[in-house]
């Protein structure tokens, strides 16, 4: 996946054709809602998927995997609709600003696997217009169980065990995972849910912390918390995520600034920019003053606490270039 190239032309062409056909931008979700048949779009169905892959290609020789999964349950109110619309901007924000080379973006959404029809929807890592289609085909079921918990852990499990990313495997660079929502995760990845929704036989439940550690091995993991959601001011939930992720727990004051916030976070982590430069970039790109303020305030703590010490230089000696046929370490 991730072979086609993103161009604004292609996006505009697709949008023009949709308008001509009289379909709304989010036809699939609307149709599902209207008909009451909750069938996951085939391109987003995680069941039986071995890997969603982010691969290098001739046109994207230095791919970097970025995944964004959001909570689409009722407590999020109108926010998932805003995300569905605004996340379409993420690719060009990243490309225009040059924060990261060859981004490949995977979008997905999750609900509450204990009671929703659709627990998890995950697209592919894409470099082109397909990702926008994935985003539009996400069904916003708007369910949830009213327990202040949603199935974040199932989304984490999928990313940990069912993605394969060249940026890490070939270059030791972590991918990005942004989870966004306003509730807590369940304490375990449930064996039966994994079997039901993904088709994996699992020997036992996996503790939340363990699956987070697994994700963090290969991904920079961030939690974005929209303040305007129902639980936006619930400190118990803030503390839950802060305890798990520390400085990587970010508030989002204005959900319309979601793409800017994600882009800035990536720019800061890649050390492409500092916070002031990021704000200037956003302003140059025509982002509203409010969107900039929201995005930079979200990242204040992260920017000051982060310390990635990196040295850059020439290629290291030959012994490091030829990896042994069989790694001497085995991952359990």
């Amino acid at each position, binding site marked *: 996946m991730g072979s086609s190239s993103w161009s604004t032309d292609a996006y505009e062409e697709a949008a023009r054709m949709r308008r001509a056909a009289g379909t709304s931008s989010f036809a699939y979700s609307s149709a599902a809602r209207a008909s009451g048949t909750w069938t996951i779009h085939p391109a987003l169905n995680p069941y039986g998927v071995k890997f969603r892959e982010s691969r290098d290609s001739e046109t994207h020789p230095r791919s970097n995997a970025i995944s964004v999964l959001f909570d689409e349950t009722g407590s999020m109110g109108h926010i998932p609709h805003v995300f569905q619309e605004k996340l379409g901007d993420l690719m060009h924000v990243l490309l225009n600003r040059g924060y990261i080379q060859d981004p490949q973006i995977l979008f997905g959404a999750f609900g509450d696997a204990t009671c929703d029809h659709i627990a998890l929807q995950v697209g592919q890592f894409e470099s082109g217009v397909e990702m926008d289609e994935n985003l539009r085909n996400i069904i916003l079921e708007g369910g949830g169980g009213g327990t202040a918990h949603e199935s974040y852990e199932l989304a984490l499990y999928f990313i940990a065990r069912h993605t394969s990313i060249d940026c890490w*495997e070939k270059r030791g660079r972590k991918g990005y995972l942004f989870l966004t929502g306003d509730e807590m995760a369940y304490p375990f990845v449930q064996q039966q849910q994994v079997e039901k929704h993904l088709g994996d036989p699992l020997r036992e439940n996996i503790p939340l912390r363990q699956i987070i550690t697994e994700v963090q091995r*290969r991904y920079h993991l961030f939690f974005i918390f929209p303040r305007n959601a129902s639980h936006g001011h619930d400190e118990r939930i803030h503390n839950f995520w802060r305890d798990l992720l520390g400085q990587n727990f970010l508030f989002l004051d204005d959900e319309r600034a979601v793409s800017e916030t994600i882009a800035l976070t990536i720019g800061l982590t890649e050390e492409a920019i500092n916070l002031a430069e990021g704000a200037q970039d956003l302003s140059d790109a025509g982002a509203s003053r409010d969107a900039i303020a929201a995005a930079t305030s979200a990242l204040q703590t992260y920017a000051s606490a982060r310390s990635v010490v990196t040295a*850059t*230089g020439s290629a290291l000696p030959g012994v490091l270039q030829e990896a*042994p046929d069989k*790694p*001497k370490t085995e991952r359990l």
Partner: protein
Amino acid sequence: MIMHNAELERISASLAQAGSAEEVFGTLVGSRDEQLEAAKRLFRQMAKAVHPDLFQERSDFDQAGAAFKKLVYFWEQAQTRIEHGTYGTAISTEEFVPFSMRTKKSHYAVERLLARGDISALYIAASLLDGAPIKCLLKIPVRPEDNDLLSNEARILTHLHVSQDYPGLHHFVSQLVDSFAYQEQASGILRQINILSYLDGFYSLKEVRQVYPQGVDPRHMAWIWRRLLVALGFAHSNNVIHGAVLPTHVLIHPRLHGVILIDWSYAVLAPSASGESISAISRDYRDWYPAEVFVREVPLPGLDIAMAARCMIDLLGGDYYTRAMPDSVPWQIQSHLKGCTLPNPRQRPQDARVLLADFDALIQRLWGGRTFQEFSMP
């Protein structure tokens, strides 16, 4: 005179082509001393033929000077490689081009490749620490995918470093000097590099066993075991489980009776609270790991104790797997080690400090007061 000249031609030509000491001194066999002796003989023979003193006021004086300089360079290289046991191994025959790295903290001039471990290539580098020159060890992961293991080692060693008992016990564990991510400009590859204090004169238990195929005297195993338990007691009392106590990760200094537990890449921190479990193992030592590791149980201190005891069984000339030991090993020591390696993790001893006290009592009964046992490695 003409003969000398031809000899100089021949030797300078071969030195000019040589990329490593091995190409100059060829295959060397026997113990380190024997290898050193053989190489020294060759060095002397060649030095006699090309020494610049012989060519004073002659046209080939400069040629002789250059050849002699090269010869000395390779002779020094041969000595270090023989001392480190890397002479003639594949890694040392690769041509090495010195390189250097600058971080926010310091500058590292990498001098040579020392060895290749499970995960990393190990280089010796010169640096400055608080203004004083130091020798240090650069640990660079061969596969960028193993960056997480290096980060983990840095995390664990930093945690141990700030512990209260670190000042008194730091010499039982690897000492982290620096840790950073290095990006290769051209390829975009990122490697997590750890810089550790260089340890001179140490041998791994694997090397000890190679030199003593029949096993070492139980009295030697005793001093190693006691110190290994101190290292483990230090880690465990700071909530760290090492997770890979293997013959390659236990280093000893024969003369000083030093013991250092190295390679903390596989360790876990506060596992009962964090839910961390051992997530990677050393493939060559797969069957040295107790069964609970493979089902990803929350690791207990007894995991390290069991693996350490297996190292001792091996060191005594026993079979780490069946736990059978030579008859020459006193039965009390045999039972002590077997008690540490019981299959059920909950039946094993969990407190290295208590275990050390038990062991001291045991050897007191067995041998009387402790005396210093001279140990040597060839």
